[in-house]
């Protein structure tokens, strides 16, 4: 392989090389520094005069005397079944002291788009055991449902609880977890690892760790390596894979860093104009393919800078993913776990996975009614602050109390409490029965007569 020593400029994570043979766009590059270390990079821009390389590790040690080797191929990831149970670096190298991965295949990490025609529609209800998700923001297999959180909130606990408890009721199919950490602290990573080890989840997990002190640019490939692995496990080996990506905010920061180094015209808040397309190339790698057994379900976690849901990162994410689970500071302050605010949360694929044959026939309408009643109660809190409780009508007082009850019984649950969907729905009816029956305008009479505790008791007595 030819080695070039024609580096002309090094700026941040970018290395500029001139007078090369034709080099392919996106090609993998090895850079050999004076002391013999090999660093990896990727071609961002290529022409006959100059080639721009984005280096995945720190550029410390790279100089005009460094040797540049173009490998002639795009970045590929060796994958194999023995990856399960392994811990890899953010760049895909084993860091658990174990042997190298024995590759059964080498796959391109950019991953082609799934042909929409080849996709199967997600329909399998995943029970997470968390009422605010199962009851009102149902997750289904093949969905991408991010957790929008903020610093200081227990989003990791929520993600872990989902990873621990997620199952498709009545199904015994094999499933696996792919966990990709981008720029999180060693402490956070340990927290995840400890839980994986304790619950035995590690045996069926592949972990990619790019920690806070690892090179930022490496974060660009970490989620892609993780998803390439997930796709291999799902579509070639038939696993149902749950992918947890945390923290996507760090990923976007890395993207911005490269954009700035390339002196690109920035979009909103300095993030590159192509961030939507770039994020889509990650998030869209979830789904089910007709005629194959497995599935890829994604739970990306991101922290909203300044709790701001309109910030470009949560905003663009929300436009790509199929809903969002919003972790809320007020609920957390009230000491409620899991502090999920159902009002801005949403699962777009919920209707595909609930109802008769999936969960229970009353699920949709019960969920709508809970939402509506809680929203109304929540609005009234603002009013109470101004006029006091006494000025409210009786109806308003009932909704106000409902909102408190909802948070205290429906939202609040234990870190290890695994509620079945029946428990969640019955609990919902208990709460709804505190409201007068004629206020349950979103539920048809038949369902009320079948499930409302008042009639159920009668039927049993």
């Amino acid at each position, binding site marked *: 392989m030819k080695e070039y020593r024609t580096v002309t400029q090094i700026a941040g994570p970018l290395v500029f090389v001139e007078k090369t043979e034709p080099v*392919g766009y996106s090609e993998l590059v090895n850079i050999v520094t004076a002391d013999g270390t090999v660093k990896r990079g990727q071609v961002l821009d290529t022409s006959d005069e100059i080639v721009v390389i984005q280096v995945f590790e720190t550029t410390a040690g790279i100089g005009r005397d460094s040797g540049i080797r173009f490998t002639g191929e795009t970045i590929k990831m060796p994958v194999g079944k023995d990856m399960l149970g392994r811990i890899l670096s953010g760049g895909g190298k084993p860091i658990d002291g174990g042997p190298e991965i024995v590759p059964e295949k080498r796959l391109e990490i950019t991953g082609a788009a799934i042909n929409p025609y080849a996709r199967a*529609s*997600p329909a399998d209800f995943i029970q997470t055991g968390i009422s605010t998700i199962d009851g009102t923001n149902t997750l289904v297999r093949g969905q991408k449902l991010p957790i929008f959180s903020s610093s200081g909130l227990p989003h990791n606990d929520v993600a872990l609880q989902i990873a621990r408890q997620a199952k498709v009721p009545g199904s015994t199919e094999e499933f696996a977890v792919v966990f990709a950490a981008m720029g999180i602290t060693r402490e956070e990573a340990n927290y995840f690892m400890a839980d994986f080890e304790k619950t035995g989840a590690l045996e069926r997990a592949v972990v990619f760790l790019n920690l806070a002190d690892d090179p930022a640019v490496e974060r660009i490939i970490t989620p892609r390596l993780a998803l390439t692995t997930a796709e291999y496990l799902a579509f070639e080996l038939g696993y149902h894979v749950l992918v947890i990506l945390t923290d996507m905010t760090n990923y976007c920061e890395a993207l911005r860093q490269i954009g700035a180094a390339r002196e690109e015209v920035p979009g*909103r808040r300095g993030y590159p104009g192509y961030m939507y*397309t770039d994020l889509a190339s990650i998030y869209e790698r979830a789904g089910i393919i007709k005629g194959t057994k497995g599935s890829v379900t994604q739970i990306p976690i991101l922290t909203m800078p300044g709790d701001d849901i309109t910030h470009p990162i949560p905003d663009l994410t929300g436009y790509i993913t199929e809903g969002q689970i919003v972790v809320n500071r007020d609920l957390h302050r009230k000491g409620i776990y899991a502090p999920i605010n159902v*009002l801005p949360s949403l699962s777009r694929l919920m209707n595909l996975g609930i109802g008769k044959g999936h969960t229970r026939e009353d699920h949709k309408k019960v969920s709508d009614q809970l939402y509506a009643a809680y929203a109304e109660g929540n609005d009234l809190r603002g*009013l109470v602050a101004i006029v006091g409780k006494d000025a409210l*009508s009786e109806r308003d007082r009932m909704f106000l109390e409902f909102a408190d009850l909802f948070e205290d019984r429906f939202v609040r649950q234990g870190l290890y409490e695994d509620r079945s969907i029946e428990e969640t729905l019955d609990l919902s009816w208990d709460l709804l029965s505190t409201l007068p029956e004629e206020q349950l305008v979103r539920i048809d009479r038949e369902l009320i007569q079948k499930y409302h505790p008042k009639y159920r008791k009668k039927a049993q007595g």
Partner: protein
Amino acid sequence: MKKGKENEAQGALKRISGPVVTAVGLNAHMYDVVKVGNEELMGEVIKIQGENVIIQVYEDTAGIRPGEPVTNTGLSLAVELGPGLLTSIYDGIQRPLEVLVNKMGNFIERGVSAPGLSHEKKWEFVPTMKVGDVVKAGDILGTVQETNIVHKVMVPPRSKGGKIKKIAAGSFTVDETVCVLEDGTEIVMLQRWPVRVPRPVKQKLNPDIPLITGQRILDGLFPIAKGGTAAIPGPFGSGKTVTQQQLAKWSDAEIVVYIGCGERGNEMTEVLTEFPDLEDPKTGRPLMERTVLIANTSNMPVAAREASVYTGITIAEYFRDMGYDVSLMADSTSRWAEAMREISSRLEEMPGEEGYPAYLAARLSEFYERAGRVINLNETGGSVSVIGAVSPPGGDFSEPVTQNTLRIVKVFWALDAKLSQRRHFPAINWLNSYSLYLDALNEWYDREVSPEWNPLRAWAMGVLQKEAELQEIVQLVGSDALPDEEQVTIEVARMIREIFLQQNAYDPVDTYCSMTKQYDMMKAIKHYADLARTAQTVGATPQQVISIKSKNELVQIKFTKDYEPMLAKIQKDMEAEFDAMRAA
């Protein structure tokens, strides 16, 4: 794409930077389609700078090197038009996705081309013209039963026309000659039309017929005319996609073109799996038989996303030319604008507002201007109604795409995340939405629904507006502090919102509501309001009036198919209750 041999020229690649590449030594014109690299990826010339030709590539460019060849086809980006369009599912550059699955498997690989129409399939052509007839551009020569829709075979718009020498019924592929003119011109069913050029019409008409959608808030309060333009801006999670899908399913256009531009894969799949199973309420046939879908998901190449809206509207215009009413949904035009921005930034163009190119407004208005109700070249009437979704970042309507769109479109359906959080669907805010077609459509409503409709609509809007004002007071002092009359107004407004405006897309009955039913429902609410007012003048308290039980039953009308007996009973009960109240 066929090669135009006479214009063929070859050059070499000089620079590759993502979806934008530079070639040298190529004799090219703007918007020529070129083949890039050894794998012959499809691209389009978007800039010429000295000897550098800048090309946007519709496929992933990873691995392409400088020095690889670039070939100019000499043609501009065009779509294939003819029988076989309906029921098709295309990507942004009219490659049928089903064919692509067969050719390259479950993932979209590159370097595969596939014609938009089947060139093997035979269609039964029935002439409507005969030998000796004189035809001109656009004239209908005959028909093909494509699905349950009759496909009209037309003289291409740029043809000179002439006297028919030969025409006969028979089985033909789209490439076989169905008609020969005296001057020797052979006419085939296939037409190729460049997507960036509007197809010609004879005359544009004023829009004065509503596009009936079966959605109460749309037909009732904020109607769009056939041939009109509407925008649905909505922050994510406000039910925009469901609203668009409802429109595609239920609007009374004969043909639906649905463009999923930069949207979610799973959502496109929902459309793809749902449409074939859906029944067209008018014909009982699968809805798919009158639909063309274009799916370019967010992770498919960005340049093809840019092209997808043009591909879609060209197909829509083609069906309009046959005399059909076509409705086109573009979801979402913001993704389209972002594709423009992305390419513009790769071209290192001077950016306008928020990084969007300075020509954003021009491109948007050019696109929406292709809508309209028209008289075609062949004297038939047809229309293309365009409903574009806009996804304003952070729900901020002041951003350039939303603002530039609002300057063009006539109808605005303001989706509101607050409403969807309350599970008020469709989450269209009745205070911020508007339709500028109301005046033009008044006459139609008078004639086709009832002369009472327009006053009824005005009354409902008045109540809703009044409620908004009263709510401000209620927020401050509580509802008990309102005068008696206004307390009832609040109740009537609640009824309008919960009974009339809320509509459940997933309920088999409520998902579509005919104009007559809308009228009956609104009239029933008004009837209650009138009875309440009368009762109040003779001393009834607001609590008494509000506690009328039978009015709560009105909600059930929505979910009942043959609702008339139920409605009559509720009206009777209501009157009886008021009578009893008066007697007491």
